[in-house]
C-alpha cells in the first residue's frame, strides 16, 4: 500500500542511522582506526609497516571479492580456504613445468572446485552451505593427499610473484587492487553483475524474467573458486612454501566477515565491493593495532566478534519499517 512508504515513525531516526551505519560505518571505522594509530602507535606511519599490512590483507581481499558475489546471490562459499590449499598443492606438483603452467593449473583446480559447488547448488538444488561445506572437507583432504607435507619452493619466477614490487608496491597488493577494480566494474556496470544481484533479491522473479539463473549461479561459484585459488597461489609464493595442511585455514570465516561488515547482507540482493575491501582492512587494522599495543590475539577476536554483531544488527534493521 502507498501507506507502506510509510513505516516511518518517530523511530525513523534510528532506522536512518542504522542504514547510514550499514552503508558507511565500515569506512568510518577504518578511518578512525587509522587516525588512532597515527596518533597513538609508534612507528605506525612507516611505509614498511603499511606494506606489511597490505600484503597480509591482500589474499583475504581477493577471496572476499568472490565471496561477496556468492553472498550477493543469497549463497555462501565455505570451500575457499580448502581451495587455497588445493592451489598450493597444485603449485608444488606442477612447478616442474615452470611457474606459468603451475599457476594456471592451480587456477583451473580452483575453478573446477567452484564448478562442482556451483553445479550442486544450481542444478542439483543442494543448499550452498551444505554443498560448500562438503567441499571444505573434501578438497582439504585432496590437497593433503596430493602434497602430504610442507614443501619449500625455490623457483625464482614464482617467488617473485610473492615478494616483487613495482615502485615499492608489492605485486600482491597490485593484483588485489586490480581485482577489486574489475569486480566493482562487473557488479556495477555489467549485465552479469546486475543479474546476480537480482537473483539474490528474488530468485523466482529472476527465473520468470528469463534470467539464466542456473548458469549465473554456476558462474558465481566458479569465480569464487578461481579467486580463492589465486589467493592460494599468492600466499604460497609469499610463504616460499606449499603448505596444504594449514594454508587458508579459517579463510572462509575471514572472507565472510569482510563481506558482511562491508555491507553485503547474507540475505543477498546487494553487493558492496569496496565495502568488502574495507571490511577486510578493518579486521587487519584491528588485529595490528591490538598486537602493537601488546594485547593478545584473543582480544582481537573478541573485538571482531563485536564488530560482526554490529554489522549484522545494522543489516538486520533494514527491513524494520
Amino acid at each position, binding site marked *: *500500500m*502507498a*501507506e*507502506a*512508504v*510509510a513505516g*516511518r*515513525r*518517530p523511530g*525513523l531516526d534510528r532506522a536512518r542511522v542504522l542504514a547510514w551505519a550499514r552503508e558507511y560505518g565500515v569506512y568510518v571505522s577504518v578511518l578512525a582506526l587509522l587516525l588512532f594509530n597515527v596518533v597513538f602507535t609508534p612507528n605506525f606511519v612507516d611505509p614498511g609497516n603499511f606494506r606489511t599490512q597490505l600484503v597480509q590483507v591482500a589474499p583475504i581481499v581477493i577471496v572476499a571479492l568472490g565471496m561477496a558475489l556468492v553472498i550477493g546471490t543469497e549463497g555462501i562459499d565455505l570451500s575457499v580456504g580448502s581451495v587455497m590449499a588445493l592451489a598450493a598443492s597444485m603449485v608444488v606438483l606442477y612447478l616442474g613445468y615452470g611457474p606459468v603452467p603451475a599457476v594456471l593449473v592451480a587456477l583451473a583446480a580452483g575453478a573446477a572446485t567452484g564448478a562442482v559447488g556451483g553445479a550442486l547448488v544450481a542444478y542439483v538444488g543442494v543448499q550452498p552451505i551444505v554443498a560448500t561445506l562438503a567441499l571444505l572437507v573434501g578438497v582439504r583432504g585432496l590437497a593433503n593427499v596430493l602434497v602430504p607435507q610442507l614443501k619449500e619452493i625455490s623457483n625464482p619466477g614464482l617467488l617473485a610473484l610473492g615478494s616483487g614490487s613495482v615502485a615499492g608496491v608489492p605485486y600482491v597488493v597490485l593484483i588485489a587492487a586490480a581485482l577489486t577494480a574489475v569486480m566493482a566494474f562487473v557488479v556495477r*556496470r*555489467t*549485465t*552479469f553483475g*546486475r*543479474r546476480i*544481484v*537480482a537473483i539474490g*533479491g*528474488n530468485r*523466482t*522473479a*529472476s*527465473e*520468470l*524474467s*528469463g*534470467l*539464466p539463473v542456473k548458469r549465473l549461479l554456476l558462474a558465481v561459484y566458479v569465480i569464487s573458486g578461481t579467486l580463492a585459488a589465486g589467493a592460494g597461489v599468492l600466499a604460497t609464493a609469499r610463504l616460499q612454501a606449499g603448505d596444504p595442511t594449514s594454508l587458508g585455514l579459517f579463510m572462509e570465516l575471514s572472507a565472510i566477515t569482510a563481506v558482511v561488515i562491508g555491507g553485503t547482507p547474507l540475505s543477498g*540482493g*546487494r553487493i558492496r565491493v569496496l565495502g568488502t575491501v574495507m571490511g577486510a582492512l578493518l579486521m587487519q587494522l584491528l588485529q595490528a593495532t591490538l598486537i602493537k599495543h601488546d594485547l593478545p590475539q584473543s582480544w582481537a577476536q573478541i573485538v571482531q566478534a563485536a564488530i560482526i554483531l554490529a554489522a549484522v544488527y545494522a543489516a538486520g534493521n533494514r527491513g524494520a519499517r
Partner: protein
Amino acid sequence: MGAADAEIPVLEADGVSKRFPGVLALDEVSFALRPGEVHALVGENGAGKSTLIKVFTGAHRPDGGRVLVEGRPVAFGSPLEARRAGISAVHQEVGLVPDMSVARNLLLGREPRTRLGLIDLPRLHAEAERTLAELGVRADVRAPLRTLGVGTRQMVALARAVSVRARVVIMDEPTSSLEPREVETLFGVVRELRDRGISTVYVSHRLDELYQLCDRVTVLRDGRVAHTGPLAELDRLRLISLMLGRDVAEVRAGGVTRFSGEHAAAAEQPVLEARGLTRRHVLNGVSVSVRPGEVVGLGGLLGAGRSETAKAIVGALPLDEGEVTVAGTTLRRRRPVGAAIRAGVSLLPEDRKAEGIVPGLSVRENIALAALPRLARAGLVSEARIDALVETFMRRLRIKASSPHQRVDELSGGNQQKVLLARWLAMNPRILLLDEPTRGIDVGAKAEVQALVDELARDGLGVLLISSDLEELVEGSDRVVVLRDGTVAGQLGGGEVTEDRIMAVIAGDGAGDPSGEERHG
C-alpha cells in the same frame, strides 16, 4: 454522522491524523464502528485505508487525534496490545507460518499446554478442528499450512482472527483469493459474527460484496473522510464517484470497468497455440490459442489449473506432454522461460511479491530486469538507455514513485503491478499472459491496468487474461476458455461471454462447447 443512537461505538477514531515524510496519510479522520455492524471501508490506494487499519491494530501510532475502544481512549503500543483489547486483523498478506501445521497456525501463541508446559497436541488438534468446523471449513489440521490452497489458507487466517474472541474483526481484502463457494462461507461467518454482536470493518475492492454484506460505509479519499453513512442509501455509481472523486456522469461514461469490449481479433492465425498441456495431477491436455489483438480469458475456480496453464506456456512449469508454438515456431523447452521471452511471450505472475518484484531493488532496476541484455552492449549496461526506457514507461503507465531510484517495495500494490507490466512491455512482447493483473490493487490502478490491456490488444498484442473477478473476465475478454480440474471445460465466444454462462460451464451444465478449441485450431 447522525449517530445519535445512544450506542457507544466499539471502536472509534476521533480526528486521527498520521503523517509520513512528505505525505499526510490521515487528515483528521473520524470513524465510528457500532456494535454488531459490518462497516465497509473503501477508498483508492493512498486514500488511507491501510494506515487507518494500522492505527487501529497498533502498528502505527497516530500523530493527532484519539482512538477509543468502547468510549475509552486507548494508545496501543503494539499489535499485541490491540489484540488484547479485542481488535483482530486479517491482513492482506497473511501472516501465517507456512511450515507449521494448520492447528499450530490457528492457535499460534495460544497453544494449549500440558502440565509440563509442552504443547498439548491432542487438545491442540481437537480445538483447531472445532474452530474450523464452526466456520464450515474443511482441512486437515495436522497438515503443514503450505500444503493447502491459497483460499483455504486465507480461511485459516480468518478462523484465527475469529477464534481469539475478538470484539472487532478487521478484514482487508479477505476474498481476494477465495473461490465463490468460500466467499459464501466467509459471508456466513461474518453474518454469524454480526449476530453475536461482533463488529466487522470490511475492506474490499469488490462492490458486489460490499452491497451484499455491509450495513454502513466510510469512504476515504486522500486521507480524509469523503462520506460516511448507510450503504443502502448509496448507489454504486455514487459510491464509485465518491471513491474516485469524479463526477457521476464521468464514471457513467467510463463504465465500471475500463474495458471497452470488442477487439478486432478477426480471422488472423493464432499467434500463440498451446496444445495438450499435460502435467500429472495439475493439467490434463489443456489447449488454448490466442490471436493477435485478441483477449482470451481463462476462467475457472481456484485450483482449476489457470495459473498452471500460464506457467506451462512460458515454460516455468515442467510438462509431461504438450507443446507451445508462437507464430508457428515450437518453443524449445531446454532453457524454457528465456526461450519463451525471446519468442515474445511474457508472464505477469499471480504472486506479485514472491514471483514478480525484486524487493530490495529500485523501480528502475525492476523495470529493466528482463530487458537488460537489450540495454547492454557486449555485456556492459548502458545507463542512458535504461534511463530512457524507464522514463518512457514510468510516464506511459503513470507509475507513482518519488524517483526511479525508490525501492520498489515501498510502492503501493497498484504501482508495483505497473512496474511489472513495464518490465514486460519493455520486451515488446507479442503475447502477454496476465495472471490476476488487478488483484489487490485499488480501483484507480485497476481501471488503468484494464484500460492498458485494452489498448495493447487494440495495438495487436495477444492477451491471455486470468481473473477470478468474473466481471473483469467478461468485460475484458473476447473469448473465454473455462478450465475445470485441469481440463478445458468449455469455451465461450462473442455474445456467450456472460457471467452466467461462465458459471454454468464451471458448474458443468454443458452450456459451453467442450470441443470449442478445435473450432479455432
